[in-house]
């Protein structure tokens, strides 16, 4: 008799786009990793989960969140993300190169969620954002210091973040925005990591930002409805956006309600521009504004016309590729990290609202049944239900 598995997930529909699987499969976990996948697994397991009627997917990956609680901006990763099946999050620029040690030493060790970081080119990250744009003074952006923060923390920091936005580089200040972008580009090149650029509400033309991005870089909030968005003057998706996509720039949603316009998303998808990755930009919003968690964003894009397989790919295989972790995360092939989730697609009438008040009506939404992290089922925890 074979050795017992730690966990056996039985009877669910495995959706693993990395391996083009969307079919009934049993999945077994041992030693923190995926141990076996087959139509039927009959071995012994310490714990067995009945996933009948549910979807089994790799642990979800949210490449744009903020989790630097108490010192910068952010939500509790375990409550807001992990409890909802998001086993990996990227903190996108809450920490600057100067405040990174606080995130690394104080905050991340307290989470069970897998956390990676894109460090902000601004010294203070988003801590100062309520008072002034974090790059209103360009001396906050230090190429060498940001690159050093990356190379000295290779297990944690995966890239450089910059916000080319009125609220990030100074209202209407094009010269400052260009210099911020230039410095962020330099830092990413020096450290040889991807650059993530927030492009919503940019003071410079979107094509100019995209022109600075190469394969593997990330343009986040790509479906925003601000003046400079994916549509050109002719109302069609800009040539530069398509070109960026073709050369391998990651087009990320970074939802946050205010950074994803329902009409833009609908038209873009109708024109065949499907985002590479769905993500939330989870942060602590001012009173009265919603920020949806990843399940909510996935449900909306399912309603907007993305296929189930595409939605799951955008938060598993494609998200893992976007952060350079395809060898460990984003698939349930044997040997991969034992992060998984059992989801239900619930029928009903659901309404989602964007920052402009536009609505998405959905007939189905994702619910989280079980979360599996490093091969163990997490006890049902308090989850933020948005």
């Amino acid at each position, binding site marked *: 008799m074979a050795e017992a598995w730690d966990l056996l997930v039985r009877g669910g529909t495995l959706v693993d786009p990395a391996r083009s699987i969307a079919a009934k499969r049993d999945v077994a976990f041992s030693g923190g990793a995926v141990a076996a996948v087959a139509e039927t697994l009959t071995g012994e397991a310490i714990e067995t989960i009945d996933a009948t009627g549910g979807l089994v997917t790799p642990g979800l990956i949210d490449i744009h969140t903020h989790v630097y*609680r*108490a*010192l910068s901006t952010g939500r509790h990763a375990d409550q807001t993300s992990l409890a909802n099946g998001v086993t990996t999050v990227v903190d996108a620029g809450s920490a600057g190169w*100067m*405040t990174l*040690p*606080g995130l*690394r*030493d*104080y905050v991340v060790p307290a989470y069970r969620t897998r956390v990676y970081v894109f460090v902000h080119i601004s*010294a*203070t990250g988003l*801590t*100062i954002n*309520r*008072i*002034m744009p974090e790059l*209103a*003074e360009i*001396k*906050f952006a*230090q190429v*060498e*210091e940001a*690159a*050093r923060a990356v190379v000295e923390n290779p297990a944690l920091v995966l890239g450089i973040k910059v916000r080319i936005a009125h609220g990030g580089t100074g209202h209407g200040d094009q010269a400052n925005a260009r210099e911020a972008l230039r410095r962020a580009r330099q830092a990413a090149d*020096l450290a040889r990591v991807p650059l993530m650029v927030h492009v919503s509400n940019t003071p410079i033309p979107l094509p100019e930002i995209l022109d600075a991005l190469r394969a593997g870089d990330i343009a986040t909030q790509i479906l925003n409805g601000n003046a400079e968005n994916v549509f050109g003057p002719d109302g069609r998706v800009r040539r530069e956006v398509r070109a960026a996509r073709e050369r391998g720039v990651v087009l990320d949603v970074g939802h946050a309600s205010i950074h994803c316009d329902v009409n833009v998303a609908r038209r873009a998808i109708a024109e065949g521009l499907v985002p590479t990755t769905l993500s939330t930009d989870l942060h602590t919003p001012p009173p009265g504004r919603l920020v949806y968690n990843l399940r909510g964003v996935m449900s909306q894009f399912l309603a907007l016309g993305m296929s189930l397989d595409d939605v799951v790919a955008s938060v598993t295989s494609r998200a893992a590729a976007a952060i350079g972790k395809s060898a460990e995360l984003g698939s349930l092939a044997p040997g991969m990290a034992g992060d998984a989730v059992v989801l239900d697609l619930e029928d009903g009438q659901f309404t989602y609202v964007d920052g402009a008040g536009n609505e998405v009506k959905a007939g189905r939404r994702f619910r989280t049944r079980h979360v599996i992290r490093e091969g163990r089922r997490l006890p049902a925890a308090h989850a933020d239900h948005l």
Partner: protein
Amino acid sequence: MLPRMGQTKTLARHRARRADPAPKPAPRFDLVLRGGRVIDPAQNLDRPLDVGIRNGKIAALLPTIDRARARQSIDVRGRLVVPGMIDTHAHVFQHVTGAFGMNPDLVGIRSGVTTVVDQGGAAPLTIHGFRKFIVEPAITRVFTFVSNYLVGGLVGHRYTQLYGPHGVNVRETVAAIEQNRDIVKGIKAHAEVGGYSRWGIETLKLAKDASRQARVPVYVHLGRLWAEADGARIDPDVLVPEMVPLLDAGDVIAHPFTKNAGAFVSREGKVHPLIFEAVRAGARIDVGRGGHMSFAAARTVLDAGIVPFTVGADVHGYTINRPGDGAWDEGYFDERVARRRARARPVGGAAVFSLVQVMNELLALELEVPDVIRMVTANAAIMLGLEGQIGTLAPGAVADVSVLSHDVGRWTLQDSLGVQLTAKERLRPEFALKAGKRHAADSPLLFESTKGAV
């Protein structure tokens, strides 16, 4: 904040009653410090005494405590035994304020200091993190004067634009204080030339608004910190008359001995007359040493009869090793710059490493040992509103104790301008007790201070 010891007395008696049949008197003290010169200005004490400690509290001060009554004794003959010293101006928001923020225990307990007061590192936006990541893990007791500015002392306040009225929110400051009264004891604010050239005295007015609402003092950095706004020309001596009318009794004015303009000593080389008025009205003065020591200014201020109430070492990353202002624009990956960085020098010339080093400067300026001890114990406790709880060795108080050696000889001290002064006596911390538990004064900062400056 302080340990509660209510039940332990009864427990101890209970244990004593059911002692072994072959009676050996149960020790009455966990620890006795024997034969030291006990200086406790809060009790007007200065004489050789044994200090008996039980259950983390001071249990007795007696001429002699029988050795049999002590579980453990430490011979401290020839040493000063003083209440656990309180550094009223520290920067210990480590990992969040860049090179500026020190480790709390390095400047605290491992430097012989049992309590530190962070000045303006934590802010309304970050106070919860400060509590969880700094106050709770530290061995040293940590309090804070919360920053007047929402973001606090990031990068040692080098980004002027964060520190205008637009960066202050009185309502949030008051809320931060009210929700954290156990650790927040006041508000850190500034009255200085660079901010004044941009916004007038407005930020201090906002600080006072919050301070009155929350009923805590402000601690005012006085003297130039930031450069003036482009093209602005400010007479630095307007700062004192702008500041003084705003203050209440109990507020603290810092950096009396600074070399920088716009502080106690006017451009005429005299103490500004309104400073006397402020002191008469109950304002308190904290040395706030940092890069702010001119022996000449100190002489002028002390000779005018103005004596600091508290010391405040103001040790921060830049008092030890400050990269030049241009360093950020050049290369970490560039070896030439890396070499230049290795030669970086502390702000204001001589390095400042510890509270005791600053106390030695005050002794060299001819203040008396008991007066200096009072500043870092009884007076500091008053500034924090904790008199009777810390800063004294009165029986019943928590057993925070600093033990210092006191040597006579000749040492050379150096101020922030490079001016030298000869010291004829020297204090050095040997160890400290925090709530009765012994911690060695083994901070590497102390070694540097004895080698380099004292």
